[in-house]
């Protein structure tokens, strides 16, 4: 079965204007424009099977949104090739557009001051759904997303979370085979984030639709994506399972100890992250874990000891800040 998505040596660069502060620079800029070339995506190659959920992880400006836009046909690549469902996205053929959908966090496609259902109806016409199909999908999505009482309200009367649910529903009316989600949980409260994630997972399981998600929330990726692609400075740093990422990039372990309060200064064992009462958190290089643990157990009275990976955010942080390769 042909791959759903293939990217080969994909690259994208822009030219941006450059200017300094001050009145003199301001006047100069009236006559002479200084520009600078930005390589948003340097060289990205990857492929996806149908039905996969992939998370693109990276700090702002890493190139993940740019990559997503090239996959959805919004941007024309500067170099390389991209094929989605057998089409070249940048050609924007209607055949292709009918099979994909785009959802952007904090950006609405629903019309502001009319009932949600009327915005849905507009999509029905644009995507040429039969009335029967449309009815069925609306009912289905209303159930899955618990939209019942929201459908007849104008969008401006909905809370941010309710609005996002409706946006997602509107985006799925035409049963797309590929979902492009750009920071979909941005700005939502924790419980809504969780609901949205579980919905996406369920949708993927029910329909076999592929999902490409960009986020800088670790929680999105942890919960949803069996496969993670880490992008930084326009290049792929890692492409694989999240557990692999942790194993590969985490060079440290976290030790949480419960010792007597008068055990003294523990910095001789490792970096002390926190120390409250008898509860001490230490950061220790991975390869020294066994040795340090043995020393601690020998020299101190330990009531409890726990060895764990540092929080994933920290690992990612360190990957991005280049403290590891």
């Amino acid at each position, binding site marked *: 079965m042909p791959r759903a998505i293939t990217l080969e040596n994909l690259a*994208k660069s*822009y030219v941006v204007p450059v200017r300094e502060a001050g009145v003199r620079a301001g006047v100069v800029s009236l006559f002479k424009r200084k520009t600078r070339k930005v390589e948003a995506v340097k060289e990205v190659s990857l492929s996806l099977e149908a039905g996969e959920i992939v998370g693109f992880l990276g700090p702002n400006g890493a190139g993940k949104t740019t990559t997503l*836009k090239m996959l*959805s*046909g*919004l*941007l*024309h690549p*500067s170099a390389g090739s991209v094929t989605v469902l057998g089409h070249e996205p*940048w050609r*924007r053929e*209607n*055949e292709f*557009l*009918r099979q*994909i*959908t*785009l959802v*952007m966090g904090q*950006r*609405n*496609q629903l*019309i502001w*001051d*009319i*009932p949600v259902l*009327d*915005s849905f*109806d*507009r999509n029905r*016409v*644009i*995507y*040429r759904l039969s009335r029967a199909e449309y009815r069925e999908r609306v009912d289905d999505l209303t159930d899955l997303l618990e939209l019942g009482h929201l459908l007849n309200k104008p969008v401006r009367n909905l809370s941010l979370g309710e609005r996002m649910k409706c946006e997602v529903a509107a985006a799925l009316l035409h049963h797309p085979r590929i979902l492009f989600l750009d920071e979909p949980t941005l700005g939502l409260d924790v419980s809504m984030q969780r609901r949205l994630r579980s919905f996406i997972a369920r949708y993927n399981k029910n329909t076999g639709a592929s999902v490409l998600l960009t986020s800088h929330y670790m929680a999105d990726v942890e919960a949803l994506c069996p496969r993670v692609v880490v992008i930084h400075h326009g290049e792929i740093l890692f492409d694989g399972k999240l557990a692999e990422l942790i194993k590969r990039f985490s060079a440290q372990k976290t030790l949480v100890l419960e010792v007597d309060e008068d055990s003294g200064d523990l910095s001789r064992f490792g970096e002390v992250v926190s120390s409250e009462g008898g509860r001490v958190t230490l950061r220790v290089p991975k390869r020294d874990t066994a040795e340090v643990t043995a020393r601690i157990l020998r020299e101190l009275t330990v009531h409890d000891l726990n060895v764990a990976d540092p929080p994933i955010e920290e690992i990612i942080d360190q990957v991005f800040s280049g403290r590891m390769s």
Partner: protein
Amino acid sequence: MNTLRLLGVFLRIGLLGETQYRANFVIQLFETGLSMATALGAVWVVFSQTETLGGWRSAELTALIGVYFIVLGAINVVVAPSLQKFMEGIVNGNFDYTLTKPADAQLLASLSEVRIWRLADVGLGFAALGIAIVRQSAEVGWGDAAKFSLALFTGGVVVYSFWIMLATLAFWFIRVENILQIFWAMYTAARWPVGIYPGWLKWTLTVIVPVAFAVTVPAEAVSGRVSNGTLLGAAVLAVLLAAFSRWFWKTGIKRYAGASS
């Protein structure tokens, strides 16, 4: 065809928006009424000092003002608000949604917003036109009415194409937020017959910002002074501008997507 269905659903949606219709309509009547009174007042002041202006008599100038407001209202019902929203969509990124839909982006962008209460302007314009026809010495026959309709239609196509061209500039001049204002700034000149202006301005108003075809020509048709040559010219210009604006728009989309060719 699906385009018609799209048109239908957009109009219906536009009508659903803005819940305070009646209030908007009344306020619009007041504002436009005042604006029209100002325009007519200026004509009155001029005709207190003379009998004709560049060959146009008072009633014919009234007709001109009527057409001016008919066209102004028509533009403001759909074209202006939709293209304004389109330009904002380029700045805030919402245009991406339009591009990922399997329907023509120009169509979607041109129909996205409807301000139905601007029909008040169209109504007032027709009222002024009606008064002018009554006051005018020449009879308006079916031939004149047909020419008027044709002139208005071709004028409409010319104006719409021009607006698309202006809006397309947004792909290059993202930060010039009031590009569309170029049309309105030049449009004020259409309150007077384009023939009175110095050559270079007349040319600008005919070819560069084509308000002459939108207002003066239909008004000439009402007073029976439009030549078939002018009407033919208008039709030709309409076809050319429509084709060019469509090409320009497509080029703009390519630019937005960062296509290098």
